[in-house]
């Protein structure tokens, strides 16, 4: 296995699936770049370079630069999927869902049900999430709870290059609409990634640290931070089990419940404001189905109920940090 960045892993997944299946195509703003310009083709390869190089191999009929019209992009993606393609749309920043949400949640997600099970809408919507870029209120959100909430959507939040590749391949092969959320602070993260194509099934959590005192559930960048907190606390004699469910919908609740059965304690980490968050969702499910195992309150570590601030000093306070995660773990273990 070779070391690859998350960006490379995603690019490889797209390239291999596009080679395998001629129905796979990529749509989005500047997914190639350079259209109608005097300079180079493939000038962008996506806002942060994930699709770089693909237009060279697959051409502009399969890597299609779009005008800045997200409703048209998402609608065209859904329509193309209904008509037999397997499009991968790039929404760029997830924050832009506000201008195209109808096509995602009222159209693509609901076709199958509204049409009595006859529609198949195999589409992937990639989007960048998360803070750390000092990008302010409209470019730093995660918004995964808004997607998780929607029946008919699947929601993926990878935390390693290995997972990113396998989950993106699964997303492309999957017959349902999938939201694939890439944390923009993780593109340069390195990890072992096999060269060949492989798919990681949805709904199967990854237990990234085994432990006995407390269960911590976290996704995406927060999974990395939860692991760091677990490593830190090991030195303090606290044994933390970290679970990265990898997909929020479907959610591998069984693995979480099994773990809580052993540890009796749960901390959920979520890079999102607290209300109706994924942290709340998981806490509620455990409070219903794992109540008898619980020895302590379920704690959540989230962002505050505010928009994302711009200033670095505020953003660092805003996002759940290793310290805040560790503090919550210590608190719940002390009960």
């Amino acid at each position, binding site marked *: 296995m070779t070391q690859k960045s998350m960006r490379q892993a995603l690019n490889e997944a797209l390239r291999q699936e596009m080679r395998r299946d001629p129905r796979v*195509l990529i749509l989005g703003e500047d997914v190639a770049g350079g259209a109608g310009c005097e300079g180079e083709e493939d000038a962008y390869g996506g806002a942060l370079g994930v699709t770089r190089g693909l237009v060279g191999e697959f051409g502009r*009929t*399969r890597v*299609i630069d*779009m*005008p800045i*019209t997200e*409703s*048209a*992009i*998402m*609608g*065209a*993606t*859904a*329509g*193309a*999927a*209904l*008509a*037999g*393609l397997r*499009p991968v749309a790039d929404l760029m920043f997830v924050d832009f869902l506000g201008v195209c949400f*109808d*096509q995602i949640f*009222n*159209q693509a997600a609901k*076709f*199958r*049900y*509204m*049409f*009595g*099970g*006859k*529609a*198949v809408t195999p589409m992937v919507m990639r989007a960048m999430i998360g803070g750390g870029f000092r990008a302010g209120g409209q470019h730093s959100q995660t918004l995964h709870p808004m997607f998780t909430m929607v*029946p*008919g959507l*699947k929601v993926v939040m990878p935390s390693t290059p290995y997972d990113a590749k396998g989950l993106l391949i699964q997303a492309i092969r*999957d*017959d*349902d609409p999938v939201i694939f959320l890439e944390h923009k602070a993780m593109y340069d993260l390195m990890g072992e990634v096999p060269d060949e194509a492989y798919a990681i099934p949805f*709904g199967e959590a990854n237990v990234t640290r085994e432990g006995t005192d407390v269960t911590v559930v976290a996704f995406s960048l927060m999974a990395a931070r939860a692991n760091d907190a677990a490593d830190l606390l090991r030195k303090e004699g606290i044994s933390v089990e970290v679970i990265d469910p990898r997909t929020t919908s*479907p959610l591998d609740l069984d693995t979480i419940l099994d773990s809580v059965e052993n540890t009796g304690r749960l901390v959920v980490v979520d890079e999102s404001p607290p209300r109706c968050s994924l942290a709340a969702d998981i806490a509620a499910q455990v409070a219903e189905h794992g109540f008898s195992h619980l020895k302590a309150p379920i704690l959540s570590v989230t962002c505050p109920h505010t928009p994302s601030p711009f200033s670095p000093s505020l953003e660092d306070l805003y996002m759940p940090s290793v310290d805040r995660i560790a503090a919550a773990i210590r608190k719940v273990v002390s009960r």
Partner: protein
Amino acid sequence: MQINRDELLKAYRRMRTIRAFEERVFAEFERGNIPGFVHLYSGQEASAVGVCMHLTDADKIGSTHRGHGHCIAKGVDVRSMMHEIFGRKDGLCGGKGGSMHIADLEKGMLGANAIVGGAPPLAVGAALAAKLKGEDSVAVSFTGDGGSNQGTVFEAMNLAVVLQLPAIFIFENNGFGEATGHDYAVGSRDIIGRVAGFGMPATRVDGRDFFAVHDAMGEAVRRARSGGGPSAIETVAKRFGGHYVGDPMRYRTAEERERTMRDDDPLIMFRRKVTDAQLLTPGQLDALDGEIAALVEASAQSAAQAPFPGAADLETDVYVTY
């Protein structure tokens, strides 16, 4: 008139089926047999049929909340539609969709759509699929005069022009968006002129006149199939009824409505044209009327008796796998 006798009969059959179907839906709704919101298409039959006569099952259409006419024009089975609108388990969508979400993907009918402006982006996607697969099929979206203002529609048109897709945008100007006149809501007071500014051929036709619609659509389809890119057509024909069944229609005068139903009926206009030109006989048309009446009667009868979906159906059909 480049259209042969069989096609004329087919066109009339479809227009009459729409009318008869909807009259029955109206009656059943009033009787309490049909749940939900129902929007009728009567008065606009020539638009859907003039457009869809040019389409095969491989061509796609995306529709609106007022979708019965588009479905029937596209060849969707009337009995399954009736069962769906009655909310029955063996309806076209298992009773999960209803009037506002009827779809028949095998017929290329991508769904009625209860979101105004919902369909045009979808149709553009279907057109993209056709182009990428190298097929010569086209994709058509229907939008109302009210819907012609929606941002999604403008975006879809621009995208179709940028990618030169085989997409055709039909604007059905029936005078009203709910209780608002189109001259009020369309600032330019010129739907198709505004569309032309997007860079595609755009024509306005008399939407009561099957032949006018049929001609304009013929050209648009030829253009699209031969790689000539998107087009738009505005069909002007008032709806006979209210926005939905039950609408008190206070925004219309009784005179205007009577005048419309008397003078602007696409079926009467069609019948007059084809019989005057001795292309079809009144007898042929009457026979079709009878056949269709029987079909609609049988559909409503069986729909009323069909079983409803039950608890086992509630949570199915959300995902292919989960």
